[in-house]
């Protein structure tokens, strides 16, 4: 289990995904701010970009040799950090897994038992978006899905969740990949609208692409007629929801995930027992909740039971 039998250092190392995306920047802020507030020393490193699987592993390996008492990791894929984590686990240092879960089989094979997992189920987030779209548009309406880089794990999970929720209630006419980029999503949405003027809704795997789609819808003069839903809950996206651009976004609160991650480390280092899974909050933000969400940003707007508060105060 999670022991404090390591070096006893209370320093925390965090390795997260690429900072070229606001989602992970918010996560970084969550970790940093909490550390500052609690007087913990933290080193945060990030992958070069969303495809930098080995680079991320290299960075974790570099940190593994240093004097850290606990590691917070957000792997790019289920297994890319497993090799790098093996020596950390062997040294008995606690590992807090956030956002992207480590592949269970791979972890078991390498003798890694994360102290806890904190995150949102990306599939569930996609599902929330799917349910929302189903409720907004008539049955059998045409929808298109724009994913991140083709082959990306997170994107695939969100898209799968959306498709599962859509079931046969929606007609998914197209699925394309816009590399997580606003401009690419804009171009593709423009093309898709041109090919299918009767399209009812778009689902985007992240907010940046969602905002690109909004722009395309705007250019086509169809604002309000086409439903656009994305996942993340970035500031920009919330503003857009408020302004009537995005119809909704499924907020995942990366800031809160980061915060929880750091707190979990504190608990682990102090020798506390952590729950195996901590579900971080997700919330569908529509125009009704937008104001509230913006003022609470980056914290969740809905009351949220932090399971770690009690453990921390001990």
């Amino acid at each position, binding site marked *: 289990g999670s022991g404090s039998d390591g070096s006893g250092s209370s320093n925390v190392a965090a390795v997260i995904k690429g*900072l070229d995306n606001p989602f992970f920047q918010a996560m970084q802020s969550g970790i940093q701010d909490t550390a500052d507030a609690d007087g913990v020393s933290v080193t945060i490193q990030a992958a070069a970009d969303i495809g930098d699987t080995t680079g991320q592993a290299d960075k974790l390996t570099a940190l593994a040799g240093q004097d850290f008492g606990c590691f917070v990791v957000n792997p790019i894929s289920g297994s890319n950090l497993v090799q790098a984590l093996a020596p950390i686990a062997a040294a008995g240092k606690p590992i807090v897994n956030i956002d992207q879960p480590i592949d269970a089989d791979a972890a078991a094979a390498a003798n890694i038992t994360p102290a806890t997992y904190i995150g949102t189920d990306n599939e569930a987030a996609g599902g929330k978006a799917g349910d929302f779209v189903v409720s907004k548009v008539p049955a059998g309406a045409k929808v298109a899905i724009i994913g991140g880089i083709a082959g990306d794990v997170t994107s695939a999970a969100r898209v799968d969740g959306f498709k599962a929720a859509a079931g046969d209630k929606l007609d998914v006419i197209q699925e394309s990949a816009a590399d997580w*980029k606003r401009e690419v999503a804009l171009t593709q949405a423009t093309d898709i609208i*041109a090919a299918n003027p009767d399209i009812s809704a778009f689902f985007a795997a992240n907010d940046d692409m969602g905002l690109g789609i909004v722009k395309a819808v705007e250019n086509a003069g169809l604002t309000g007629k086409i439903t656009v839903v994305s996942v993340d809950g970035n500031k920009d996206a919330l503003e857009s929801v408020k302004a009537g651009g995005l119809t909704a976004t499924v907020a995942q609160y990366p800031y809160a995930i980061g915060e929880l991650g750091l707190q979990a480390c504190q608990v682990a280092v102090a020798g506390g027992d952590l729950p195996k899974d901590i579900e971080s909050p997700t919330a569908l933000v529509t125009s009704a909740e937008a104001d509230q969400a913006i003022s609470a940003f980056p914290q969740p707007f809905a009351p949220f039971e932090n399971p770690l508060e009690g453990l921390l105060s001990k």
Partner: protein
Amino acid sequence: MRSFGGQLKQLSFWAENAAPIGLVVLVIVFAILSPTFLTLGNIKAMLVAAAILVILAIGQSFVITTGGIDLSISATMTLGAVGFGLAYTAGLGFWLSAVVAILTGLLIGLINGLLIATGKVTDFIATLGTLSVATGLALIVSNGKPITVTSVELLTLTSGSVWIFGYPIILAAILGVLAWFFMFRTRFGLHVQAVGGNEDSARANGISSTRIRMAVYLISAGLAGVAAILLVARVGAAEPAINTQYLLNSIAAVVLGGVSLTGGKAKIVGPIIGALLLTALTNGLTLLGVSQFYQPLAVGLVVVLAALLTRFQKK
């Protein structure tokens, strides 16, 4: 007519005109497969989408004519966009921000020029270095966050149009005409071709290859700055994300346009058509709902086929 028919049989005819022929073939194929493809709305959208690539391809074409290559072109655009965003947020207004975007671009161009023209560093490595530097700078100054820009002028720029020609493609066309003029009708353009054709001979005739090289990297970077404005206008935000795709596509467009990477042979219309071709390809594939997985394959095949064709060009 006979002589034209005879020409058609010549491989070199096809080679010289790989880009326009490819474009025509694509248009015919897509028009048959998708009823939407040739609608005015789609053509308009395609042209607007092509504008940025067209401008980058023009810049790249100047560099490649001197036998160089600008790998930093898309990173420079990113940095320019961030520069625009920061300037606009700081309250400089549209026009001043646009100037900032172009100046930011020119800064990278200046570094490229100094390294390559004065420092005699290989173009490939120098611009690979500035690609990294510009990417880093864009992330640092923007703090890695997209900067949302809402400006009336930007809105006009993206949404305004004359018939099916949106303002971005009109801007690109104007730049294309200017580029053509400077390349083929002025001393400067002749000297660009001369330096690319044979640097030693050009210098023996009193042409400063240093100045010419400096100039082409400035042109390329300046155009990347202009493209940056269009990019911000298009997405409504300045994003520090790297646009590798634009880099590879700008080079592919120039080569599809029949410009040899060894330099010396200038073309402006060719690369523009190359850029349109690449845009039409992605557009058509999206319209047809071709799986995302097959799109890189299709682009790769087109590039390879065109390259196979261009090799039959007359020397």
